[in-house]
């Protein structure tokens, strides 16, 4: 299973495997055996990596993991790449296309007020050097397109919203 981790704005795809005895973190070409055990104190763990035993404090948030290491706190962003692009922002109406990770808008094919049909291309974005087409999840009317071609967006930002069904005629 994969994750995309973000530290200081830099994204790294990782995946985790297991040998049965220990875990192996795959970082690009590298494979790093590591293990992780609870220690005394709230959120305290010992990470064993490259033969070293490192004490740290960890708190897992919804979208980020926070680590206190060597007297300093770090925030590591977590994204599940299997989460589909253009997933709904909550609710069944599929009103909002939410960016799962930061990227750039390559093209915008519709404008606010346009009537769209299911499957129609709304915009094209690029994230992690990968171009993705965001298509309309249902028939509807475009409510807002907050970004223009060339704009950058952050993870979890709303890329486009449709007029909610109950408000539409």
């Amino acid at each position, binding site marked *: *299973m994969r*994750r995309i*981790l973000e*530290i*200081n704005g830099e994204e*790294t795809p*990782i995946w*985790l*495997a*297991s*040998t*049965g005895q220990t*875990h*192996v*973190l*795959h*970082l690009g070409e590298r*494979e*790093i055996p*590591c*293990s*992780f055990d609870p220690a005394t*104190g*709230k*959120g305290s*763990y010992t*990470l064993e*990596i*490259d033969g070293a035993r*490192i004490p*740290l*404090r*960890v*708190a*897992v*948030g919804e979208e980020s*993991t*926070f*680590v*206190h*290491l*060597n*007297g*300093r*706190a*770090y*925030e*590591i962003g*977590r994204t599940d790449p299997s989460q589909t692009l253009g997933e709904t922002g909550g609710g069944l109406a599929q009103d909002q296309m939410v960016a799962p990770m930061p990227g750039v808008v390559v093209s915008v094919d519709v404008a606010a007020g346009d009537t769209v049909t299911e499957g129609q291309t709304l915009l094209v974005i690029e994230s992690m050097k990968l171009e993705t087409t965001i298509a309309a999840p249902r028939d509807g009317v475009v409510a807002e397109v907050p970004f223009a071609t060339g704009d950058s967006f952050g993870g979890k930002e709303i890329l486009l919203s449709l007029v909610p069904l109950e408000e539409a005629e």
Partner: protein
Amino acid sequence: MSISKLLVANRGEIAARVLRTARAIGIKTAVLRHPAEVDTPAHAIADEVLTINGPTPVAAYLDIEQITQVATRIGADAVHPGYGFLAENAAFVKALDAAGIIFVGPTEDVIDLMGDKIRARNFVEERGFPVAPSAIEDDNPADFVERARAVGYPLLIKPSAGGGGKGMHIVREDSQLETGIETARREGERYFGDGRLFVERYIEDPRHIEVQVMGDGQGNVVHFWERECSIQRRFQKILEETPSPALSPEQRDEICESAAGIARAVNYRGAGTVEFIYAADGGFYFLEMNTRLQVEHPVTEMVTGFDLVAEQLRIAAGEELGLQQGDIGQTGHSIELRICAEDSDADFRPAIGDILLMDEPTGPGVRVDSGILDGGSVTTDFDPMLSKLIVHGRNRNEAIARARRAAQDYVILGVTTNLGYLDAILAHPKFQSGDISTGFLAEEADALKHEPDAATQDILMAATALSDATLVQAVENVPEIYRMMGAWRN
């Protein structure tokens, strides 16, 4: 006159700090709460918590009528305003006065005088205390240029109606003076609709040094020595210390005596702070007087041993100061760090989030004045300052070492804070040698940035992956045969 019940008209760390002292000396306590606020330490300390309402939490804390009504209703005989909000609001003092409630602070007149920067400056100058040379156009527009020239270079031109640095121009030589005045006037008209100007001597690489004073309104005033607050970002202090490493014993006496003299001139009552600009050549100039307890008052408490809030409450109850200057010593060195929810690497942008894990440092000479609880959350409703870490050591080096150790031990996870940035300041060689000015953080911005190295990034990614329950569970659910494949696939 005595105080038996105190309402603290504030929140966060300062409310908790005032409540602790009040409770310790046997006063019943009450504090406020807006419905949008999470639990804070103050709510756990106070005997009573009273709900106040308003369109925003800040508006509620600024609502003079509502807060005065609450104080009356619960039978409080005094109100402590903390700092910020209504702490320097003469109308609030008046409203409490009308309700027969003691305001823990100075009189309405003194708040008014010191709140008007031009009046305060003139008052101080007329009594013979040092102010930066300046010229105000309004005094006589006809000879403004001549008077500006007489101030001497370098000088700073400011719009009279200005604020936030807009329309300010530094002029270093006479040939630039008239064009500088014209530019500033155009900008003043554009930004503030008011082209009137004033100029003052520009102090290069200034330090910010202030003096704690206390008076009883009955003619007695003492000072509690100085604090240096030159470490500022966005014109706001984030690290303060005492004694100032810049002052010789003679200069220290001179600046502290000037501050006490200014307080004496207004027959000051309560705790106050006189702020000065300190120039590289040793000259110092009155900047302003804050008529309240300051955020950074704990460093003064650490080196003098006094509880300044206890002194405030004693004076508010009508007691005499009862202290001579010789009773107040300065022992060792103290540093305060302001822990703020902000991203120091992204232009100090305020951060929000839930406090998922918190662990405060302890040990000899370590004090934490906190406004947050583990499990609480940080919103944009209030100032980003979460807590203050204050240390005391026998000398400056020991205080720096203790501050670094405590900052590194202070765990706050779930919201971005400036703890790592504050530690980087303490570690900077120029800070350690005391070579600082109000421009220090801007000049050393690159040196204070922190990027985790490759080995650290590996550790962070491993910890993130292995604490990700979904990820670990998915890996462990893989059938044995695939797990073995995973080991030799690459």
